[in-house]
């Protein structure tokens, strides 16, 4: 007989139920009362509910939760598994969706006279649900479903400005390449299952000991995951998609998708084995070098920030290299990765959010020539963008610095000092384009104001303070997020 759901099941399913319930409520109310503007309220309610139900897990650092056998929490017979640190990253994903929603209130919600509000808000709820499943996945079924559920809404949301060629192109490009990546992922899963007969992360270990069939599957699986994370040979879509997508959606992709894919990769990373730390370190260095090189001669600030995201994802692979070099370091590496993801996530949210506000003042352009001098004319948005850029660069006193510090510390602790030095040098190289953003914002004379004046967007301006404050707070007081 099938057993009833246990408290662990409910704990991990509750956020998903809130989000899915929100989607259904929006659709049903829209069917009966199309004129009422309730979507935003319901969506924020669902996001808040999801965060509220995820909170107990995020809070439970050391002590087990009441009625739940142990941490990390396993649910549905091992379909999902989440530690408190994962829950913090999950809160980041929910926050990213909320911020994307607030940034859209006065812009994307009004596209085509507001006819797409329903699609926008339902998809904004489905995407974080997919992220939550992905980052807690510990079964092929949940991994694939999670990745598809987070990608599908983003394909559509990227193309939300249907009248603009760039946006449609971004959506189509993301969809086609993403479909290929999903194909790789599923093919890899099939080969792994054929070769090892397992569908849990143990399949990876078994594959490393097994034959060529399972190993080929492992290669395909990682190709699919690395595509979502945008690691070097699979990163070419990022700049185009991030540039073409509406900026609030770009913020959600940068913070949420990256975090979910990174945690999935960490869950499915091989334990120390024949792959060795060299492969991950090489991928990381190649990604950092390529991203830095490409970012140097970009004119569009969104492209620069997109490539900075690629570099950040590359840096994350150093954590996997550390895990490979020192097998016993699982818990501390995971803590470092969790903190790094939260630090990068809040920085990226602040950066893209502030860029969206500045972009509106520059007539919808994100080129350096259109944005020059705007930092002085709009001190708050400019200041938040500058702060986020400093954090992305890794200036001490910001969250970004500590994130990088923890990852490199893990690398040094695992004995890979040379790799760590190389990584730090590559990171210093990236200062060149981060500084360029600051030069554009503050040291150039302002361009003449073009286009119609922008609407006053108080909700966005207020909400932007949250990631900005977090950037500083986590930079000087990392304990709350790193305690795990």
């Amino acid at each position: 007989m099938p057993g009833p759901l246990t408290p662990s099941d409910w704990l991990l399913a509750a956020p998903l139920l809130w989000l899915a319930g929100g989607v259904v409520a929006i659709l049903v109310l829209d069917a009966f009362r199309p004129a009422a503007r309730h979507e935003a309220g319901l969506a924020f309610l669902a996001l808040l509910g999801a965060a509220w139900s995820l909170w107990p897990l995020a809070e439970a650092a050391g002590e087990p939760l009441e009625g739940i056998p142990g941490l990390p929490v396993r649910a549905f017979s091992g379909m999902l598994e989440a530690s408190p640190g994962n829950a913090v990253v999950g809160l980041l994903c929910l926050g990213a969706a909320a911020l994307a929603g607030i940034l859209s209130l006065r812009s994307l919600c009004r596209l085509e006279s507001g006819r797409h509000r329903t699609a926008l808000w339902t998809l904004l709820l489905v995407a974080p649900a997919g992220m939550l499943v992905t980052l807690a996945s510990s079964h092929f079924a949940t991994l694939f479903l999670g990745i598809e559920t987070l990608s599908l809404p983003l394909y559509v949301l990227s193309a939300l400005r249907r009248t603009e060629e760039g946006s449609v192109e971004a959506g189509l490009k993301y969809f086609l390449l993403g479909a290929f990546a999903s194909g790789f992922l599923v093919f890899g899963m099939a080969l792994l299952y054929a070769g090892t007969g397992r569908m849990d992360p143990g399949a990876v270990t078994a594959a490393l000991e097994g034959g060529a069939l399972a190993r080929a599957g492992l290669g395909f699986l990682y190709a699919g995951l690395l595509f979502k994370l945008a690691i070097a040979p699979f990163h070419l879509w990022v700049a185009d998609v991030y540039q073409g997508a509406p900026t609030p959606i770009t913020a959600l992709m940068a913070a949420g998708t990256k975090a979910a894919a990174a945690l999935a990769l960490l869950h499915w990373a091989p334990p120390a084995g024949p792959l060795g730390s060299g492969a991950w370190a090489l991928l990381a260095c190649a990604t950092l070098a390529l991203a830095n090189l490409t970012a140097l001669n970009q004119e569009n600030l969104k492209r620069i920030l997109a490539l900075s995201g690629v570099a950040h994802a590359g840096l994350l692979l150093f954590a996997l290299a550390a895990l490979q070099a020192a097998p016993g370091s699982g818990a501390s590496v995971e803590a470092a990765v969790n903190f790094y993801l939260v630090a990068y996530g809040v920085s990226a949210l602040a950066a893209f959010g502030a860029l969206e506000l500045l972009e509106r003042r520059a007539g919808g352009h994100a080129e350096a020539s259109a944005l020059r001098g705007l930092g002085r004319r709009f001190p708050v948005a400019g200041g938040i963008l500058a702060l986020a850029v400093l954090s992305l660069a890794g200036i001490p006193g910001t969250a970004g610095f500590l994130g990088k510090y923890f990852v490199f510390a893990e690398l040094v602790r695992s004995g890979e000092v040379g790799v760590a030095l190389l990584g730090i040098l590559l990171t210093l190289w990236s200062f060149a384009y981060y500084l360029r953003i600051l030069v554009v914002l503050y040291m150039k004379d302002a361009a003449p104001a073009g286009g119609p004046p922008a609407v006053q967007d108080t909700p966005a301006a207020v909400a932007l303070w949250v990631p900005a404050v977090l950037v500083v707070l986590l930079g000087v007081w990392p304990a709350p997020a790193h305690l795990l």
Partner: protein
Amino acid sequence: MASLLAFLLFAGLAVVCALVALFHRSVVHSAFALLGTLLGVADLFLQLGADYLAMTQVLIYVGGILVLILFGLMLTPPDRRELRPARIFLGLAVTGAGALLFLTRMDSGAWKAAPLQELPDLANQASPTAEPIGLAFLERDSWLLAFEFASVILLAALVGAVFIARRRFRVDDEGA
């Protein structure tokens, strides 16, 4: 013996039709060739004793998706630029290299997923699988979460498709 013959027949049908689908010059013919591949795969399911899966394969892939593909193809103007010799040569070279690698390595034992046995006559002794599959979808210990969560994706896909296919309305009154 009979099941081995059936296996060879339908596996051959699947492979030959897949090759036709790949290499035929007309995409419409390729789409029709896919029919044979899908039916062949359905038979493989049947011979493995998965009757429900085989029927679903016929209903959904042959009956639904293939028809959709055909409609899509017939409504799309053809593009001849894809057939440049250099591209075809590159594709053949890469595929050939892969096939060569596979053929040289396939006897090493590492590729074999499971020892090749005499094909069991599963189709005649197996019980219907619809009930166990249905129960497994709703059992906490097997596929409940995946089954329920798949509906979220489908809902999102539906909303997205409606949005993409909607008529364009006059230029938005967005502030920027």
